[in-house]
């Protein structure tokens, strides 16, 4: 929520709080919409896999492929929900040192919660490998999949270096200043 350049006085506090409430509501709606996509895809993959297995006589491998996709979506949904909360609801009322430590944790690549993304990717990879439609061999699928992941990680790291590393370093510096001679 970016502040606009209006000067807030106590007289227009009512209008300001209305704006805040509107933004809260807007954010909550946007967040829910994103969740709906994931929560829709999970049963979608499961129902499709089950239907194909029972009525179209597909193999167990293909059924397991759909289950893997569903699990990947589930892990993505839960991880992104947690990450969204973590990033968007920073508690500024915590003691400065605690808040800064959380900033460092939040802006460190591959920390706690984001590791779950890799778990989701493993299930996604398993789903792709088990899927029948791909006539390519396993090695080919792995090269394409891992290549795409490697490119995504590189892009992410470049973004992190430019945008988030300076924030993390600044927070680390402040922590050092606070803890110095503690």
């Amino acid at each position: 929520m970016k502040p606009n350049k209006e000067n807030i006085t106590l007289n227009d506090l009512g209008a300001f709080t209305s704006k805040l409430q509107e933004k809260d509501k807007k954010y909550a709606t946007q967040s829910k919409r994103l969740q709906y996509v994931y929560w829709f895809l999970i049963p979608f993959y499961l129902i499709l896999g089950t239907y194909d297995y029972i009525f179209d006589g597909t193999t167990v491998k293909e059924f397991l492929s759909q289950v893997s996709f569903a699990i990947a979506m589930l892990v993505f949904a839960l991880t992104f929900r947690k990450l969204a909360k973590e990033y968007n609801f920073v508690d500024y009322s915590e003691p400065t040192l605690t808040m800064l430590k959380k900033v460092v944790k939040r802006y460190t690549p591959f920390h706690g919660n984001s590791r779950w993304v890799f778990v989701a990717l493993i299930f996604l990879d398993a789903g792709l490998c088990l899927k029948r439609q791909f006539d390519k061999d396993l090695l080919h699928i792995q090269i394409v999949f891992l290549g795409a992941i490697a490119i995504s990680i590189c892009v992410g790291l470049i973004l992190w270096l430019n945008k988030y590393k300076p924030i993390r370093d600044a927070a680390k510096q402040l922590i050092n200043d606070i803890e110095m001679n503690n």
Partner: protein
Amino acid sequence: MLSNVQKQYRNSSMKEDKFNKIVQENSERIRRICRYYNSNVQDQDDMFQEILINIWKSLDNFRGDASISTWIYRIAVNTALTYTGKAYKNMKLTININDVSQVNILDFDHDTESKEKVESQFEALQNELNTLSVIDKSLISLTLEGLSMKEIAQVIGITEPNVKVKIHRIKQQLKENLTASNHETK
């Protein structure tokens, strides 16, 4: 029985009332913090607004464990530290001569000093304050606000003895630097 929509409306209205009350009661306190960290009026207004946004965001987490003033100072200091973001290293601490007179952070003897001397000491102090680290500036701003060591410890998240040591060291450093610069000018 209230429906979910009614409950949401009631909670939202309660939050708004609570927010308005907190802001009205602490408006001047927040304004002062903004003035410490920004000399430019526009920047002060922007920071004031940012602090209000963060008070709003953190309001649901206020459990009353700390006093409301400590809670406000935490949000204000944390916002000031993160608000200035990229420019935080250049963050200037702007103090008013009255703030120094009221709290007298360096124990200047204002009664016996001439007005000119006090003003020149103040100017030198202002310059020295801006050579401090960002955290030291925050500690001094809280001291100028008249917070006790215990309250400062609660805001920053370190122990009370540690706050005492840090503030003592800052004052010592400021005194030494001011004495050295006085000798140089003489």
